[in-house]
């Protein structure tokens, strides 16, 4: 089949606007996008830059966007992109600086953040035989996270990173997860502190994009939420997240329902004059528009006593 690739091009260090180069090549029916890129480089333009390593969809090195869809080019069939027209537009992955053509700066986007959480085990002193043996069941929980190969697809799909490049991102949080849940690790509290920020664990919006993007089924979003639960349980939180969580739980415990007015005030912090002052115009506008009744009354659920009993019991069991 004859296919025309429209490939994103950018020269390093040059301010000139990125452009596209067109390459028409002859490919087998089952060719991958990577086959196409290799053919272009071999036959038409030796200066085309892209990454490739394992060539079997494991390492994530060759991630690009084909017709707007993020994929590993080594496993994505060209034919799946040419159903409507024999053209495939190839772009670098989103949200990170492009070094040249399809090669992006993963170092600042992901690896520096993985480094941030001390990506190695700090184990207990090994036994006399030099080993820290564990039953398999003790590792079951992190087997899945251990299978992460840092392809970065979760970071690419993340909804926070496009607005904040310095957010730690789900990939680095999965490294934290792998270590926090390892029974041999001795620095859980420190690890949580490293993971939480600034711009860490509590800045995740739990939008489930990371889980949807993960090719290994690691479910980063669910794990991030579980890590928050664990931090909550262990009392390890930064001030703002802690205030928000405790106020939320207190409200549900008291009345069954969430008291949004109180939550806003308590999340800002009762002694945080600047934060509270910022709420005044918002509250004034909301009241003017009839967003909340005047005087402000939060109603109790008739079942609030039962809900309180359940929460107290669950807290005791999980202490």
């Amino acid at each position, binding site marked *: 089949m004859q296919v025309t690739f429209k490939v994103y091009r950018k020269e390093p260090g040059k301010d000139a606007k990125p452009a596209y180069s067109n390459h028409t090549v002859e490919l087998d029916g089952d060719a991958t996008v990577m086959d196409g890129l290799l053919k272009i480089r071999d036959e038409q333009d030796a200066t085309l830059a892209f990454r490739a390593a394992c060539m079997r969809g494991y390492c994530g090195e060759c991630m690009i966007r084909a017709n707007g869809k993020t994929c590993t080019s080594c496993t994505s069939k060209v034919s799946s992109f040419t159903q409507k027209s024999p053209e495939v537009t190839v772009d670098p992955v989103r949200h990170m600086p492009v070094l040249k053509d399809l090669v992006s700066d993963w170092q600042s986007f992901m690896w520096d953040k993985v480094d941030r959480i001390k990506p190695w085990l700090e184990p207990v002193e090994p036994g006399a035989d030099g080993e820290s043996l564990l039953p398999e069941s003790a590792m079951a929980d992190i087997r899945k996270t251990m299978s992460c190969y840092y392809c970065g697809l979760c970071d690419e799909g993340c909804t926070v990173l496009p607005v904040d490049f310095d957010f730690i991102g789900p990939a680095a949080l999965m490294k934290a997860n792998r270590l926090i849940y390892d029974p041999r690790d001795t620095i859980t509290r420190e690890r949580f502190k490293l993971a939480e920020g600034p711009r860490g664990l509590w800045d995740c919006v739990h939008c489930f994009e990371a889980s949807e993007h993960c090719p290994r089924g690691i479910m980063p979003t669910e794990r991030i939420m579980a890590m928050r639960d664990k931090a909550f349980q262990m009392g390890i939180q930064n001030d703002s997240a802690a205030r928000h969580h405790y106020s939320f739980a207190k409200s549900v415990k008291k009345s069954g329902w969430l008291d949004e007015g109180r939550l806003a005030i308590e999340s800002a912090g009762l002694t945080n004059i600047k934060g509270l002052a910022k709420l005044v115009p918002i509250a004034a506008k909301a009241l003017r528009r009839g967003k909340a009744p005047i005087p402000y009354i939060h109603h109790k659920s008739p079942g609030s006593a039962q809900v309180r009993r359940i929460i107290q019991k*669950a807290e005791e069991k999980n202490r």
Partner: protein
Amino acid sequence: MKYAFYTGCVSRGGCPELYTSANKVAGRLGIEMEEMKDVACNGAGVLPQYLSDPINARTFAKAERMGHKSLMTICSTCTGVMGAANMRFKDDPAYREKINKEYLADEGLEYKGSLEVKHLLWVLFEDYGIDKLKGEVKRPLTGLRVSPFYGCFMRRPAEVVTPTKEYAGRKSYLENLISAVGAELTDIAGKGKCCGFPILTANEANSLAMTAKHTGEAREKGAHCMVTPCPLCHLNLDGNQDRAAKQAGSEIDLPILHLPQFVGLALGFTPEELELKRHIVSTKEVETQVNMLA
């Protein structure tokens, strides 16, 4: 069609207009809702699962006892959090039994795992029928350009939202609804992304940047308004839009309609009846368009 109606916190708090409009629309369409008053917040993804699961089991047990097969919500977050909890209870009877025994037995309750959690949007398509809804339209919203905004939990995770192929359509219900009531779809890339609300206290700047991004995109593409099935999104997209626009250095002023308000306009209710005046961003633009159709 009869449902146990779970109002959620926001429709009884920060967005009373959602409660009013949902009741009006359901009433007009003959969707019977029995409001659950004796229940609690589902945790909204903020409370840890070990607290929220028992609370949700209690809610489900109550709905079962009321004789319902489906629990209807009017909030994406409620749908997602309760849907995920329900999935755990259905998939793992031993876990359900444990929760029943440890937390519900004291009150003489038991959740048998028979319930389905559905958002009003899903009810309209899967139970009521979009063609039937079309037949009820009294005021086709011709010329009104509308952008959809789902809220994360109406899109993901797949296990809850689209557990089988049969439910694949859930990812385009809003677009189909906009066209069905005669309005014009102004599609945006950010329709399935996060509005930023969950991190409003943890990182306000990022939260507002997300709100500005999505409302700004709709505005740039020429939308008159946005419609969302999630009141938490509404709190950010409407309630914080002016601050978000200021931070982004732009003017946006995009009215954000709750799902039942939007449907209600097509059913012939007036903007006053649907309490559009309670919004923070002025809805004048929508009212002008709608009044031209009246």
